[in-house]
């Protein structure tokens, strides 16, 4: 458990927070803590993927509390497991509602966010997802926000990159049928790729828990695609790439932000020459990003933060804190208003200004290439 690995200072804070919650329920008192829920997968298939986000959130909360909390209220949090499934996510959201949290940070996967968003919107609890890029999530209602770009943009970026920069014309697309993220991204990619003039002669799908893709890949091989778009998460996409190369499929593998650098653990050097889109890169020049790297180095002894979930979760918590500060109150409706009015919030992954949907405008997408055993930043693409 990552929580067990936190330093003593952190543990003390948590204790204090719990004490405070026990004695003063509700944020009525100035010294009452504002409680947020961190909903993500602690068990199940997404647990490993989601794990880094917990520390990032804790770091942010810690920083906020170190700076004296929010308008005098310390920031408390609970981590609720969504069990890596939509029903679990819904249950988790219900649990958060029951606990009367001021806001929810999470979840990380779109398929988890969608049922959560509905429950929280009904309870009018603000929800900020760090990484879920499915466009439908924020469209659930005015309480739902995200700090990353969406799949429509990401799909366009990868499609146009594949067509114009890589010169690909025939793309195979393989989707994870259990993930809204994967399905939607594949849809946008195909749309824009075909709009550009390319062709997507083969589309396949697999189950999120799948481990053997040989059958599908044999079909792909017959199609001879010059691009193979696999918008899954690190585990499944990694296995696909590895098995594809093993079957002798020679093509350019393309992925979305679901890949992350953890895909290397599954695919290894089979990834050579592959590209994926991402929200952030360790080398980005943003102040907050450098601050984050420094904090991780100092606090956790981690030299280099590469996982994109970390800065995004970190940004989500800070963005919430910013909104509370601007709202000047722990009142949820005030916070919601304030959140919607977020302008030029400077985070580790860039500047966030919400559009009416609760999506950040003008967040750039970065394209990363795996080259000679390491990840290389290729270019960034602005929505404009």
């Amino acid at each position, binding site marked *: 458990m990552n929580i067990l690995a936190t330093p003593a200072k952190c543990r003390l804070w948590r204790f204090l927070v719990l004490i405070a919650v026990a004695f003063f329920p509700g944020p009525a008192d100035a010294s009452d803590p504002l409680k947020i829920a961190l909903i993500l997968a602690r068990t199940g298939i997404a647990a490993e993927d989601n794990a880094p986000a917990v520390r990032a959130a804790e770091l942010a909360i810690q920083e906020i509390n170190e700076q004296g909390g929010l308008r005098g209220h310390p920031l408390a949090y609970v981590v609720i497991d969504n*069990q890596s*499934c*939509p*029903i*679990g996510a*819904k*249950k988790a959201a219900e649990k958060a509602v029951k606990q009367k949290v001021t806001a929810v940070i999470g979840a990380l996967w779109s*398929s988890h966010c*969608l*049922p959560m968003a509905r429950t929280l919107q009904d309870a009018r609890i603000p929800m900020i997802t760090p990484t879920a890029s499915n466009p439908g999530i924020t469209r659930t209602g005015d309480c739902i926000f995200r700090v990353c770009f969406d799949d429509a943009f990401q799909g366009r970026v990868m499609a146009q990159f594949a067509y114009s920069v890589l010169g690909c014309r025939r793309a195979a697309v393989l*989707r994870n*049928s*259990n993930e*809204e993220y994967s*399905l939607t991204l594949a849809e946008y990619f195909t749309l824009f790729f075909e709009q550009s003039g390319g062709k997507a002669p083969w589309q396949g*799908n*697999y*189950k*999120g*828990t799948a481990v053997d893709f040989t059958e599908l890949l044999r079909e792909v091989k017959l199609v001879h695609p010059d691009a193979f778009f696999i918008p899954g998460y690190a585990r499944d996409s990694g296995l696909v790439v590895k098995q594809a190369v093993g079957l002798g499929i020679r093509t350019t593998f393309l992925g979305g932000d679901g890949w992350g650098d953890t895909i290397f653990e599954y695919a290894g050097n089979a990834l050579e020459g592959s590209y994926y889109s991402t929200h952030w890169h360790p080398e980005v020049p943003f102040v907050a990003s450098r601050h984050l790297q420094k904090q991780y180095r100092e606090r956790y002894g981690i030299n280099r933060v590469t996982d994109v979930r970390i800065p995004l979760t970190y940004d989500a918590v800070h963005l919430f804190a910013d909104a509370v500060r601007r709202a000047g109150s722990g009142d949820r409706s005030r916070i919601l208003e304030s959140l919607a009015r977020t302008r030029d919030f400077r985070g580790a992954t860039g500047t966030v200004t919400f559009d009416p949907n609760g999506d950040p405008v003008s967040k750039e997408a970065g394209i990363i290439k795996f080259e000679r055993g390491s990840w290389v930043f290729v270019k960034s693409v602005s929505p404009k």
Partner: protein
Amino acid sequence: MRFHSLRFKINIAIFTTCIGIALLFGAILYPFERNRREARIDKIKILLSAVFQQRREELANEIFAGQKLALARSLQEIRKVNGVAALSVYGPDGGLTLSTDGRFSRPLSDEEKSAAERGPFLHKERGRDYSYAEYTTPVEVIGERVGYLKIYFDLSEMEEETLLTIVIFFTLLVSTLLIVAGILNLLLSRSVIRPVSVLRDAISEVRGGGLGATVQLASRDEVGEMAEAFNEMSAKLEEQHLEIEKAILAKDAYALELEKTNRNLEDLNTRLEDIVGERTAELRESNERLQQEINERKRADREKRNLEERLARSQKMEALGLLAGGVAHDLNNVLSGTVSYPDLLLMELPRDSPLRKPILTIRESGQKAAAIVQDLLTLARRGVITREVLNLNDIVTEYLKSPEHEKLRFYHGSVGFETDLDPGLLNVRGSAVHLKKCVMNLISNAAEAQPNGGKILVSTCNRYVDKPVRGYDHVQEGDYVLLSVRDKGSGIASHDLKRIFEPFYTKKVMGRSGTGLGMSVVWGTVQDHEGYIDLESVEGKGTTFELYFPVTREEIPAPERSIPPERYMGRGESILVVDDIREQREIASRILEKLGYVVSSAASGHEALAWLENNPADLIVLDMIMEPGIDGLDAYRRIASLHPGQRAIIASGFAETERVKEAQKLGAGQYLKKPYTLEKLGLAVREELDRQPPKRPVLRQG
């Protein structure tokens, strides 16, 4: 196999036993099979439950998140489990979410839903060509009910197994039973049925007359004993039978005789019947013949009576005509004075004499009387009839303009007259006077038939009769001119029809219409013209007279003009007038003297001969009919022998007859019809005298 045979009964017993055994076996097998099936179903339920549990979470999430693509894939994977035929997923409301088979797309029923609430259940569903176990379970995860799943497990394999078991069982059972039945049959047949059959056959033989028949059976059982007893009985029976037979034989001979007699009698009877039948048929035939003859005779009778009637009618008419003719002859002679003297008187009288007119009237009356006499003569059919060519249209037209018709119109003012005359009407040969009379009589008759007014249609037309018409008269075939007079009067009663042409037969009041001879004249005229009458009358509706006259193709001659007396004046020739009637003699003499002849006269043929012996005559006017004494022909014959080639003209009040013609053959000249007129006589005498050359030289000249 007969229903009452031993074999049949034994077989029935065996069959019943076998059925019983089969039922027993079936009853034992059924619960076994049932248990086996139930165990099988339980196993299926466990299997399906396990399959579901394995994927429960996944399915639940996919259903919950509406990931149909993933759901379909999950279902396909479950379908790979052996025996699973199809899967259907339903939402929490029971509506279908997804199904692997379109056949199972109906929504979950409320009963199924409420049953599933209590937990998964298995339900068997059987159709004509399918058999499924339906495993229905709610899909629930983390306390969240997201829907229902139904797994269709194909039971056809199990059904086939069951079927196979049953088939094998029954095949075995049936074959076993057949074998058992066969063996039983064989055994029973050998020990019971066959001996019994032999015994039965022997009994049948005895019954059929084969007394003394015996049975040879080796068996010592009950059947064997029966056979022995039978043999004894058979022998005894034979003995008795022989005795009886002898007695019967004697009786039989008698019976045979009796039967023969009987048969003969029967034959006789039959023959008699045949004969009677034949006779009856003959009788019937002759009866029919007789009836036919009677009918024929009746018909002939009728015909004869008809003919006789017509003949009688004709004879009656003839007789009446003769009577009328006799009267007429005398009248004619009497009339000569009235007709001939006026001519002479007129010649003597100066042109301005006041006596001229009365004399003319006298002459006219005489002429009219002569016409009546002519009528009568016509009736006698001895009338001297003129045969000039004429047209009936002219006759009709002339009549309609005549004073007679005017008079008729005057009397019958309310009767309308119409004519329909065929302009192309052919000519006939006949007497204008008679025909006109005919027309007049018919019209007058028609007018009188309509005392209360009406209409009369007079029409003429040509008619070709191509086959005889059987009407009032029998009209023979030929070309005819038809004169038809039609009225709408009272008609003529059928019993009157036969007599209307008789003279003086009338229904009308005598007086106005005159003579009572009208219709007789019509009849006579038609007869004289060789024509026919047809007559149709319906009482109360009217009458139509149709007169048929044979046509002639000759043209009507140009009208004669009156010849001036200078042309036929005598030049002093001597003429002897021979006539038995004084008035006639005198008239003829006066006329001839007036014309400038020297006339002598003789009252009979003898007198004439006597006169001629001493006196020559240039010409003799010889009356044909003289009484008593010799007539004109005889007289001329004798004259001719005295003076061969003696010129003579023959005169007669009657028509030209055979005797006239004979006289002419002997040398006599023209025939002159009485009464005499100046012109007629003058011309005839002059022509005869001027005829060149004379047949013989006149002796007197010499």
